[in-house]
């Protein structure tokens, strides 16, 4: 009976909340599903064709694709290094105080989205792919740091402690006693974030941080629809390619 009541309360509260959300938005919901807006959407999609396929544009798009790939890759790599660096204190390796500090840092890094980091870095370092790379790296450090710390906490400590007791230095003991346990997990988290980051890198350009996103924003702003279509296609291909690569690498890493 009591359970039924809580269930009813939560369901009703939830419905009221959803209704309030619908009413507080200014949008005209009847217009959204009307024939007119559907035809406008269709018009937008058809205006992408024929795609812009001139050699100069394709070369530019290919370079931007490469740039996006490089941004996601370097960003993830930096995040792995920094994440591991913060994960060690966050996993209670060096006492409670450092653990608390490291957790706060990781939480803040993670809480601010990539795009906001990118906008901030663009102000500090100017336009270009470098601030985008750093933005990805900073946000991903927060995410990976927490995941790595959890992996470290769940790994068995005995081999590490045994090595330490036999006089092995802390770094060597960590690399041979603890790291091998968690490498498959680290690799799989890293690949998962790489898949995420390629999507993020593709859109970071909107904040002026290079890559396909910047091109997309530029051409869309000037109503160059054929170019926009090509860039969207390049994005789809890139994301598909990275997903395939990452799946393959994950199979290898976990085996």
């Amino acid at each position: 009976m009591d359970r039924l009541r809580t269930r009813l309360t939560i369901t009703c509260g939830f419905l009221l909340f959803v209704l309030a959300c619908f009413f507080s938005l200014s949008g005209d919901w009847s217009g959204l599903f009307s024939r007119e807006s559907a035809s406008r959407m269709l018009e937008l999609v058809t205006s992408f064709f024929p795609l812009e396929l001139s050699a100069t544009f394709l070369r530019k798009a290919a370079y931007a694709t490469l740039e996006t790939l490089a941004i996601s890759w370097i960003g993830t790599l930096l995040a792995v290094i920094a994440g591991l660096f913060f994960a060690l204190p966050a996993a209670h390796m060096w006492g409670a105080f450092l653990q608390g500090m490291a957790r706060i840092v990781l939480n803040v890094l993670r809480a601010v989205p990539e795009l906001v980091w990118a906008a901030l870095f663009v102000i500090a370092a100017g336009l270009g792919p470098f601030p985008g790379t750093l933005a990805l790296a900073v946000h991903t450090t927060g995410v990976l740091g927490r995941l790595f710390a959890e992996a470290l906490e769940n790994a068995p400590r005995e081999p590490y402690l045994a090595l330490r007791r036999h006089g092995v230095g802390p770094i060597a003991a960590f690399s041979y006693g603890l790291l091998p346990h968690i490498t498959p997990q680290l690799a799989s988290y890293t690949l998962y974030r790489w898949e995420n980051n390629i999507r993020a890198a593709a859109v970071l350009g909107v904040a002026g941080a290079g890559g396909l996103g910047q091109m997309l924003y530029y051409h869309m702003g000037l109503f160059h629809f054929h170019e926009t279509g090509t860039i969207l296609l390049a994005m789809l291909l890139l994301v598909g390619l990275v997903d395939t690569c990452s799946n393959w690498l994950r199979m290898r890493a976990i085996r």
Partner: protein
Amino acid sequence: MLLAKPQPWHDPAWPGRVTSTVIFLLLLLPAGYITEFNPAVFFDATSLRASKQFLATFFPPAHSLEFLQLLVQSAWKTVAIATVGMVLALGMALPCSLVANRALSLSRLGRHRMGLLPAIVRAGIRWILSILRSIPELVWALLFVRAVGLGDTAGVMAIALTYGGMVGKVFLEIYEAQDTRAAEALLVNGAGRLQAFCYGTLPSCLPELLSYTVYRWECAIRSSVILGFVGAGGLGQQMELSMRMLNGGEVLSFLLVFILLVWIADRISKGLRTWID
């Protein structure tokens, strides 16, 4: 002669390690070049001055009464965009995942192979869902800002489409990971597909479906802030305006509210999920 041979000092796995390190370094250099990797740009005089000026405006965070009103209003708007987007996403994902569910195939009953037309329809829906979710929500938002103009509707549609694709796919995976025999038994005995689904599949997977939905709602709040950056309404749009005017105090307030919002959503979502399980 049971003495083991003295172990060689070198690493037995070295060929693989050396090769992967070399490949890794070969890839690293051009990637570093392409991303114009150069931390020194932060420390040259002009950018130091720019960041110093901008950072100096961060404190104190803006807190005038009108601004706080704006803050609360846009935070609520962000939540509303995420929620409505999520409801529309469910409205798309549920029917799609029902139609594409292989376990509910009538033509497959008793012969272990689906008819050609049902197979094509199911594959087609899966394909559409996959395209919907491969395009990042920010790009959808850009497209919708072009199609329906600046404002909340673009954000709602972007979330609805991307999340519809994701939720549809995950729902399908959840249905098909269940034991399908109950639904099949119902179908064989003449139940309709909807009946077979409601009484054969749904009872065992409802908690999982609900908890995934709640988790996605939390993600939708995060991304609706980001969507604001391209003009799709809510907290992000205001933050972008303040950032453009280099008004650090307002940016800081927006960031704090955003972090608070995400934290609250995280708490609610965790609470609901433990309650569901």
